[in-house]
């Protein structure tokens, strides 16, 4: 029997690198590595030659130099003498601000539109279909420009609020919608306001604790405590009581027309609002499709079985349909959030000072440090994307079907 003896151990031959599948992969990888190294060496060499020809070098000390330009919309202290790094941080915060705002409103809009698109009301479902199709098929850049134009064209200028023959007036006496932006009252923190804030946070924790307690009670004894009004009461009553006990420490700084413009309050600039609305309605259309797909993915038998168990429609939605639909909805939802963050870089089209406009726009043009600025910009977006996908992976693992 030939199999009793070991097969002859063939010595390694050079041709096996090409013909033997065991070794061929090493050949391919070696070639790939070589090509990669040669490509990088070639590009790097070109880069160095071009840089030295232009008398440039790669250095990041420009970040400490004064930026020399102003930013209207900012969350932290900044003036034109601040460093370029500070300008970049202002930009980063602005990016995160508009991305966060747009994520919240886009989710609300998308969920409403997605649910209404499944409505039995023919008119409403068709209207929502039109909304989704229109916004999905037109570039977001055009939407941003259109909404910015609407703001400028439709809203009154500050001088129309002036005098007796004013053609515009402030909403509720404290909100001014102008074409330069929206002015809203700013809270003024008096002494003792800390106590109110602490009470508010405590009552927030209280709401969660109560709901948790009620749920445990339901699961262990079957006794059902009311959920809605006690939560509301815990949420509002202690803070309001504390507010009056401390003698109304929190006041409002209401914007006023002084000179040519409004003073006081918080100004939300026109570009921020345009970008916020445009990103919300644009992404809302995509989220609506995700929500619709998620709800439709829950089979009808689940609803019917829950009904057969005697659950009421509201509970069927909360306990049976939504938990299963969310499993389908959340992953695409998070990638939509990622898209919002990336699309917020279009702020540059309406002059909102996000990180692309400060670091990648004005700083780049003033210092001429193209490579450094673009690299930093990419690093920022990459960090955001990778952390969001990291969170998404954790979530996906936590809701994965526990299969037997």
């Amino acid at each position: 029997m030939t199999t009793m003896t070991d097969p002859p151990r063939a010595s390694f031959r050079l041709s096996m690198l090409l013909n033997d599948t065991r070794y061929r992969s090493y050949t391919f990888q070696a070639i790939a590595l070589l090509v990669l190294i040669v490509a990088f060496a070639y590009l790097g060499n070109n880069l160095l030659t071009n840089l030295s020809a232009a008398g440039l070098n790669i250095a990041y000390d420009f970040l400490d130099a004064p930026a020399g330009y102003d930013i209207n919309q900012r969350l932290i202290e900044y003036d034109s003498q601040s460093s370029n790094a500070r300008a970049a941080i202002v930009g980063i915060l602005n990016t995160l601000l508009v991305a966060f705002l747009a994520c919240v409103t886009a989710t609300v809009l998308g969920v409403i539109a997605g649910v209404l698109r499944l409505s039995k009301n023919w008119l409403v479902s068709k209207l929502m279909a039109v909304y989704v199709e229109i916004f999905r098929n037109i570039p977001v850049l055009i939407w941003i420009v259109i909404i910015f134009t609407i703001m400028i064209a439709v809203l009154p200028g500050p001088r129309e609020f002036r005098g007796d023959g004013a053609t515009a007036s402030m909403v509720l006496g404290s909100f001014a919608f102008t074409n330069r932006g929206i002015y809203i009252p700013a809270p003024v923190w008096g002494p003792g306001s800390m106590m109110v804030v602490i009470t508010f946070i405590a009552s927030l924790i209280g709401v969660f604790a109560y709901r948790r307690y009620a749920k445990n009670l339901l699961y262990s004894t079957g006794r059902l405590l009311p959920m809605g009004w006690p939560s509301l009461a815990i949420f509002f009553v202690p803070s309001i009581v504390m507010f009056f006990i401390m003698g109304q420490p929190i006041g409002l700084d209401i914007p006023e027309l002084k000179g040519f413009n409004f003073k006081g309050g918080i100004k939300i600039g026109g570009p921020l609002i345009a970008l916020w609305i445009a990103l919300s309605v644009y992404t809302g259309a995509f989220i609506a499709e995700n929500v619709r797909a998620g709800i439709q993915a829950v089979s009808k038998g689940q609803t019917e079985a829950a009904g057969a168990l005697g659950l009421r429609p509201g509970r069927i939605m909360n306990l049976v349909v939504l938990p299963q639909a969310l499993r389908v909805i959340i992953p695409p939802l998070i990638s939509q959030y990622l898209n919002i963050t990336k699309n917020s870089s279009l702020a540059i089209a309406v002059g909102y000072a996000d990180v692309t406009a400060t670091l990648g726009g004005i700083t780049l043009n003033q210092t001429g440090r193209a490579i450094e600025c673009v690299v930093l910009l990419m690093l920022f977006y990459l960090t955001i994307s990778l952390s969001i996908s990291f969170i998404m992976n954790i979530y996906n693992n936590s809701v994965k079907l526990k299969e037997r």
Partner: protein
Amino acid sequence: MSDTHENSVAFVRTETIPEREPPFTASGPVKWMRENLFATPANSILTVLALLFIYLILAKTLPWMLNGIWSTDSLAACREILDGSTGACFSVLTERWNQLLFGFKYPAEFYWRPTLALVLLAVAGAPVLFFDLPRKLLAFTAVYPFLAFWLIWGGTILVPILAFVGVVAGAMVYKRLVTGSFAAGFFGGIGAAIVVWWVGGFLIPEGASDNAMLGAVPSRDLGGFMLNMMLGVTCVSLSVPIGIALALGRQSSMPLIKVICVVFIEFIRGVPLITLLFVASVMLSYFFPPESTVDLFLRVVIMITMFSAAYIAEVIRGGLAALPKGQFEGADSLGLDYAQATRLIILPQALKISIPGIVNVAVGLFKDTTLVSVISMFDLVGMIRGPILASTEWNGVYWELLGFAALLFFVVCYGISQYSQWLERRLATDHR
């Protein structure tokens, strides 16, 4: 039996009553409305709100559109004719029609060339999009890129002919060698094409474009919606093969290849397109040899192609992952090697699954071509925001122009997505 009740019942009907129309409220449009619009009080409120919303929109836009003016040559003239009443000034579209479509620098006497290229694009695209058409039409599709290049850029015809000859030579070498081994055929084909181009480069005389049949147009003169179409079509068609390669690389068992593909895909997908366009406009030229001048259009095409290739790779990876493992094992047990199995068994099925995703990426990419206006290329949006709105005649005509741009993109993108749905139904071979 029949006479049992003869005295107790006064009247027994012996014939059926003729059928009557259903009551007015239970048939026809009224029934439909009761069921679909006013089923519950909440539903009725929604309906009324929706009607109010539609009315408000129409009340604003309809008079504006119907009262539109199509034949003046400035906004001031429009306002004069309208004399205070609401109405659109569509004459900006008629007057600047060519600029919107072709940009403001493309020579007017050459407008027929991009138009012809667009018409031929429909002919060349048809056999790719609709499988029922005769396969022989694909021959024209193969010639089309070179023809379109020649039509749009003009210049000497030798350049596109040389490029075409190189591709044909490469294809022939590939056909000859692929029966032995796919790798030999693939690399042999590329090598042959490069040799032909390199040798042919010496044959084209200096200044051949000067007195060419079609006058040469430099790339920086391209603009308008033509630029969007060109970027979209070029980048999508280039990025599909690259995306397939990246997706296969990401599935590969060779760790080095896999790492390269993963890093590339995740990097590109992690940054916004606009930063990649910045790379194209301010950074990429540093990476080319010092004496070369690669024009902005080509640099943008490179970056957008990389961008969409990464997204398409992820879509195709989804398609590959959706294939049952038995397909891979079946191919192996037939004795097919990797290239054969991939080409004959895996890719045809994986691509079929990923077609809707690829079309989605294509639509998204086509919309994203408007971003080139940020790096001061004059595409449709760039034309509107730049030269047209800045001109003295048309300063302030926002709605008409932006609405036109939106309409143009909507028509194209909605068309593509309808095509994708049709294709999905067409390709559904499973019996569900």
